[in-house]
């Protein structure tokens, strides 16, 4: 890395951290401008796009907005000051901080702005501003893309497994996440705590959507907690052991490079199936894993024990695929 690159890296880190402070500044400035006009109560809850059906004291709403934008801003600045923090981790922190503070700032702006516009909290109409509220989390993309781009491909795996002309190989491993295994029972518990009281009060009809969403999330997490990683003539595949659903499939001819490395959930956006711009991952925890770069320039990471064997087999199969005879029994005997 040259001096110039290091310089721009530091500048972009600072820029990303500063972008994280913008929502806090927006909340602060808007309060300063409106402070004399704001009523004692602000609209804080809408059930549809019509008039507000919930209000909050202005002081409480402001405190909440300052916390929601202040804590992420401080976290981003602190992260920018830690020089040893890996670029991918820094990007994850400022991105997540931006999501939180963006939502915090827009919520405040809508609560205060719409109340001011309508004259009183009860008359504030949400209307199409609902879209702004829903899109506010996108602010996370600003610091995310301002932060320096992480570079992962450092040491490419070069070793190839020696396979006979008529030999075929298959690598198969189940991967389990201890973290994700705890989530479904926890979600079920939360669902019970949230909905059983409502159910007992006889408001069952209104809760079905909520219960359905919670149960669907529980099943989705349960599907991700126990997976099977296979490498064979079809390429790399990640299949859920429960239900046999293929979550990821990279064909041999699409594999450009393979890397064996220690994966950290922080660098890939957490646990489970993660999708980020240009890269995706199945992360079951910190530990050994593979990073595949496809011919399209995208990266895919998966935690798996014994990644060396998987990488060597994958490269051997891909090279044989390139040389013709993809199927060992299809290879004509030359003897």
């Amino acid at each position: 890395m040259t001096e110039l690159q290091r310089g721009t890296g530091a500048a972009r880190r600072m820029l990303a951290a500063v972008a994280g402070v913008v929502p806090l500044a927006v909340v602060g400035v808007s309060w300063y401008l409106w402070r004399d006009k704001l009523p004692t109560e602000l609209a804080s809850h809408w059930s549809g796009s019509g008039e507000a059906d919930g209000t909050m004291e202005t002081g409480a709403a402001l405190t909440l907005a300052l916390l929601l934008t202040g804590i992420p801003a401080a976290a981003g600045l602190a992260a920018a000051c830690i020089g040893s923090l890996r670029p991918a981790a820094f990007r994850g922190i400022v991105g997540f901080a931006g999501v939180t503070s963006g939502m915090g700032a827009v919520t405040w702006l809508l609560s205060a702005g719409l109340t001011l516009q309508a004259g009183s909290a009860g008359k504030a109409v949400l209307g199409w501003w609902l879209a702004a509220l829903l899109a506010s989390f996108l602010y996370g993309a600003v610091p995310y893309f301002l932060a320096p781009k992480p570079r992962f491909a450092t040491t490419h795996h070069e070793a190839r497994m020696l396979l006979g002309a008529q030999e075929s190989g298959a690598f198969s491993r189940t991967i389990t996440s201890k973290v994700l295994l705890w989530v479904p029972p926890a979600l079920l518990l939360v669902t019970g705590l949230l909905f059983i009281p409502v159910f007992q009060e006889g408001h069952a009809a209104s809760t079905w959507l909520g219960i359905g969403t919670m149960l669907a999330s529980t099943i989705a997490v349960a599907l991700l907690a126990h997976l099977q990683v296979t490498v064979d003539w079809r390429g790399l595949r990640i299949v859920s052991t429960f239900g046999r659903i293929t979550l990821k499939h990279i064909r041999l001819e699409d594999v450009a490079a393979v890397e064996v490395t220690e994966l950290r959930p922080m660098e890939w956006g957490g646990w489970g199936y993660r999708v980020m711009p240009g890269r995706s991952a199945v992360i079951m925890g910190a530990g050994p894993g593979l990073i595949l770069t496809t011919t399209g320039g995208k990266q895919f990471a998966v935690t798996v024990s014994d990644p060396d064997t998987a990488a060597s087999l994958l490269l051997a199969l891909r090279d044989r695929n390139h040389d013709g005879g993809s199927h060992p029994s299809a290879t004509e005997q030359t003897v």
Partner: protein
Amino acid sequence: MLFRVDAASALSLAEQIAIQVRAGVVEGSLAPGERLPPARDLATALQVNMHTVLRAYKQLRDEGVIEMRQGRGAFVRHDAGPGLIRLTELAEQLLEEARKLGMSRQDVARLIGGVAKS
């Protein structure tokens, strides 16, 4: 774990699969209770007939290395260990030697019965 089968080998494909499962148990890469890949999946992955994989699994089951649970697949038995594998290999060698001498399986069983009594 890694499975490899070579059509050019003198050993049958099923035997090759069985040997690798046994080796996996001995060296610890297959832990007791671990699930083996479903026969259909492994057959597709290795591009062999599913019955070849099933033959290997049945042989391993008869040896007491794995157990097949109805509808749930094949698992490494909790009591399967290097000792059992070693004994199975010795039994196979014994049968092979007996076959060379022209002895039948019943002859071998009788022989072992006789040794056990003495």
